[in-house]
């Protein structure tokens, strides 16, 4: 039997498989699981019969079915002609609402199993596409147009998937004569818009994969502006220019960019790295890096606030070597008065950034699992009445045990025995592992009750997603949560920095000049070196990377450096420094605009090593602070240092 799992391990290497990771509409109707397939069909006649039967299952757009069908096609590429015939006749025969999924199959096969299928398909793809295009509704058309655009760079060498001739013919059929770049008389606004949308989505995906990709980010902003322009109406000439630029951009993207966020066969969701849980996953109550504490990085808000008219020219030169002069084009257009200098851009930039801050659509498998659960639970006929609930129907047992066959041996929590469930269970076990490790590190160290979370944090559920609940990124996040996630990512990056401990100084205690916390050295297996984690070397001094990043922003480092001699105090006797769980994720603007009241709040939130309050003592002795503290993350004292610096009269 072919099963999902059997195929699950095979890579689907191609970068352009839009329906797998692009937009939710493709997958709105998760289908029943793929049908079983007989394992061995040597005979062309029976192969044709079976493949036709499987094709008949492809009624809705379903990844498993498409995947299954293209796997079979790959396996039996010696029957490529039969597969091609089956698909062609299938598309011609089925009602128009079933045609698009079949086209996606054709698309998947030709991109993923290029040889020999693209060749076979190119024989009939032009008339088939155009014929279908003529029959389907508006929405399907635009989906087909999107697909068509991916064909331009769909071959393994990023050239035309079905050859330039076919591509040209289809595009001419779809958009009229002006369609092909070589032969331009009339270009419709609609075509440009479609291509624009396509390029935009490509860029946004790239940006999601790599949030530091300022090039993509700028492109996105520019593309949004261009879209407004085109919607407002521009001349043929400019349409042509825009189109040319777009195509070179798309081509550059296809060649240089970008593993899609998730390999196609990965069962669980396209969650770009920046959306995963913050770097220190098992400490839910103390998200150790409040967004407010890193003013060094522009938050989304600050980016938004700057009108792109000022941003773009300065950043454009740094745009990648693909030499795409979109910005120039835009400014030319502006000069001609198509765009008011300070009109649309602000809004355009904003909307683009909000778009990209949305996580990817929830994964198929999750949908499928919840759909099958829904069907099962709705089978039960229970009404909410006093009479009805006391009639004995122990239907619950199925849901408590049978559907959840895998159980965590440590805590008894159960998971479904499916790919989806296993993935979740892995995450769950990982959480236990982390927790146990943390517990071992913390032996002998006091714990304490955290403050409750503040209202804002509670409403936005910021601190939660780290407990192995297995819902990574599946829920809508708002811009603020997105900013927090981005900050956490940056924080993680900072923490990953290290400085190699100089030979012979391994035993010498070295403390960060900003927070005065000693560095903890650890052995880096890969490099076979002792290193200090979360450390940077500046002016022959080692700082915590996180401290330095903050201080560099506030200018504190300068002051501290001069104060250094005076302020070197021993901290060996200070009470343990604990973060305040609740306040830790705060609004991003707090630190930048510290008023004195804020500062005192801060000071009061971060327990003071200088002991602002006399008489603080711990009820239980801390035996081993130095070992475990830095492993926890950011030294807490730095917040205080910042707060005090802000408070103290200069």
């Amino acid at each position, binding site marked *: 039997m072919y099963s999902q799992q059997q195929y699950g391990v095979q890579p689907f290497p191609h970068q352009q498989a839009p329906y797998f990771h692009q937009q939710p509409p493709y997958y709105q109707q998760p289908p029943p699981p793929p049908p079983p397939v007989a394992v061995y069909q040597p005979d062309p006649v029976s192969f044709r019969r079976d493949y036709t039967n499987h094709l008949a299952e492809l009624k809705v757009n379903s990844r498993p079915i498409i995947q299954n069908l293209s796997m079979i096609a790959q396996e039996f590429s010696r029957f490529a002609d039969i597969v091609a015939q089956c698909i062609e006749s299938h598309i011609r025969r089925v009602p128009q609402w079933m045609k698009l999924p079949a086209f996606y199959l054709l698309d998947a096969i030709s991109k993923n199993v290029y040889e020999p299928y693209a060749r076979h398909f190119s024989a009939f793809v032009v008339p088939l596409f155009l014929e279908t295009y003529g029959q389907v509704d508006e929405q399907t058309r635009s989906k087909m147009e999107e697909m068509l655009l991916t064909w331009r760079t769909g071959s393994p060498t990023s050239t035309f998937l079905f050859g330039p001739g076919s591509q040209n013919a289809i595009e001419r059929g779809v958009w009229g004569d002006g369609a092909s770049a070589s032969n331009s008389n009339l270009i419709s606004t609609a075509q440009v818009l479609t291509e624009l949308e396509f390029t935009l989505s490509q860029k946004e995906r790239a940006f999601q994969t790599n949030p530091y990709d300022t090039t993509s980010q700028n492109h996105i902003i520019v593309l949004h502006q261009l879209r407004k322009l085109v919607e407002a109406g521009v001349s043929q000439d400019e349409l042509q220019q825009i189109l040319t630029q777009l195509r070179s951009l798309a081509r550059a993207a296809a060649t240089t960019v970008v593993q899609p966020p998730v390999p196609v066969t990965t069962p669980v969701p396209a969650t770009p790295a920046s959306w995963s849980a913050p770097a220190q996953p098992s400490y839910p109550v103390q998200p150790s890096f409040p967004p407010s504490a890193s003013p060094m990085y522009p938050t989304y808000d600050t980016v938004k606030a700057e009108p792109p008219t000022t941003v773009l020219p300065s950043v454009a030169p740094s745009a990648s070597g693909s030499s795409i002069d979109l910005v120039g084009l835009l400014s030319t257009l502006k000069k001609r008065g198509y765009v008011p200098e300070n009109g649309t851009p602000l809004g355009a930039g904003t909307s683009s950034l909000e778009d990209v801050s949305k996580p990817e659509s929830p994964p198929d498998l999750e949908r499928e699992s919840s759909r099958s659960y829904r069907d099962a639970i709705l089978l039960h006929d229970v009404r909410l009445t006093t009479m009805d609930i006391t009639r004995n129907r122990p*239907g619950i047992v199925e849901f*408590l045990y049978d559907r959840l066959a895998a159980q965590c041996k440590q805590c008894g929590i159960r998971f479904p025995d499916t790919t989806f469930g296993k993935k979740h269970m892995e995450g769950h076990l990982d959480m236990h592992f982390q927790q146990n490790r943390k517990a071992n590190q913390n032996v002998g160290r006091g714990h304490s009750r955290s403050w409750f979370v503040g*209202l804002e944090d509670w409403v936005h559920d910021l*601190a*939660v997603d780290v407990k192995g609940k297995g819902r990574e990124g599946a829920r809508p996040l708002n811009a603020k949560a997105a900013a927090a996630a981005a900050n956490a990512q940056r924080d993680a990056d900072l923490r990953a920095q290290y400085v190699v401990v100089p030979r012979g100084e391994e035993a010498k205690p070295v403390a960060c000049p900003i927070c005065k916390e000693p560095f903890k050295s650890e052995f880096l297996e890969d490099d076979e070196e002792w290193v200090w984690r979360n450390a940077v070397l500046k002016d022959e001094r080692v700082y915590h990377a996180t401290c330095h990043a903050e201080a560099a922003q506030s200018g504190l480092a300068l002051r501290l450096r001069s104060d250094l001699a005076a302020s070197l105090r021993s901290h060996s006797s200070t009470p343990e420094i604990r973060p305040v769980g609740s306040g830790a994720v705060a609004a991003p603007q707090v630190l930048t605009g510290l008023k004195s009241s804020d500062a005192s709040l801060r000071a009061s939130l971060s327990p003071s090593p200088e002991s602002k309050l006399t008489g603080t003592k711990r009820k239980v002795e801390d035996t081993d602070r130095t070992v475990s503290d830095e492993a926890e993350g950011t030294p807490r004292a730095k917040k205080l240092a910042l707060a005090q610096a802000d408070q103290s009269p200069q």
Partner: protein
Amino acid sequence: MEGESKEWTLDPETEYRFELDPGESLAVKLIHGHAEVFGAELAANHPYLFGQECKAAVFTWRGCTIEMSHPSTEYVSEETPMAAYANLHIAFEQMRVRALRDLRGSPVPEYERDKPTDPPRVLVLGPENSGKTTVCKILINYAVRAGQGWSPLLINADPAEGGWAAPGAISVAPVHSPLATCSPGSPLGTAATSAPTALSSNALLPLAYWYGHSETKRNPLLLERIVRNIGENINDKYQVDLQGRTAGLIVDTPASFASGHRSNDDRQRLIRACVDAFKINTILVVGHEKLNVELNRNYGSHLTVVKIPKSGGVVELDHLYRERVHNYQLHTYFYGQRVPPPAGISSASLGGETLSDIILSPSSTIINFGDLSIFRIGAESMAPSSALPIGAARVVSETQAVPVDPAASGSGLLNAVLAVLAQPANTDEAERYDEEILDLPIMGFIVVTNIDIPLRKMTILAPNQGSFVGRTAVIGSFEWQE
């Protein structure tokens, strides 16, 4: 385990009930089969510890064998209301999946078209000792066990109960994993600590407000205001988290909502406040015919009122027991949980956590009188409005914040439990208002352990280290001494 322990084999759908005396502890180990304690499944071959006068039951749907040390009262019951609770769960799951389907815009089959798409928002009412909290816990636990990623909100509107916070608080928390039962000191899981926890239900993030008294009649106006505030906060959360909304919510209420001998109006008003604030669509009445009829009359037209059976296992609890539970809860809040395992048990888990991980170290701090502003809401002892002479108005209204001077003798501060308020989100002075103090959630509790009037200093016990300078705290009527 040697000597003392014994094994029980339970038939399907029966439960083993036990009641512990003060200072006694019990370890239960599942040998084989499936077993659960109030909806939280036990893992096999792990001793689970119970203590602090815990009264609980190990239920099995399919039969099991368990092994335990010997508690004082124990018996097996074959009559449980679990089948009814299970049916309730299925009905609520149907509401949840429909809500999720609606949210995702998935296609709806013909026969489902007329079904409501509202997730379950459930108010649980019942008289004293009817097992309301247990019903809430079971329903929540089944929901999080469904494997659907539900994180329903559990609202504790019973000020005597404490929930994750301390008695006197009204709070709400999203629950992601089953709530363990191990001690009445943490009836609904525990709030987050700095310790790593195995279960997220032992690191809950509640949003809590301070009511300050165990009885609802003490200040119904304040209680109503808190309920409405929480309702608004939940609405805000639902705006952000559309999918979270589909898991619904469950509200545990005080017994006084079900039967108040003299404050009938207040009772009705508080039920109404809950129904409005939490947009309740289902009311469960635990084993109380008269209340069921009354609620059906008042609400039956636009929401579902269901009477559900009460478990025969509920224990009549007296006033003294409840006092002791308050102490357990406050102790748990500051010090975590210490339950000495019974003889012969070396390693066991308490509420799913390793023992060493749930011992907490609070911090004792001396502060100046001026560091902390302390208020009391309303007058210290207040007759109900109806008892005042006609035409007379109160000197201090129920919702007025009255400053408390620690230097004054009889301030009532010594050993008092104070709630430290969260800082207002808006520090803009223009946005402040007189009654703001009533609308602020709390960040935690402190206890005044010593007052030095000549030096104008007091010693406070706080859950963790931190300064209280510039903070505001509110006193209630709870006291606690170690």
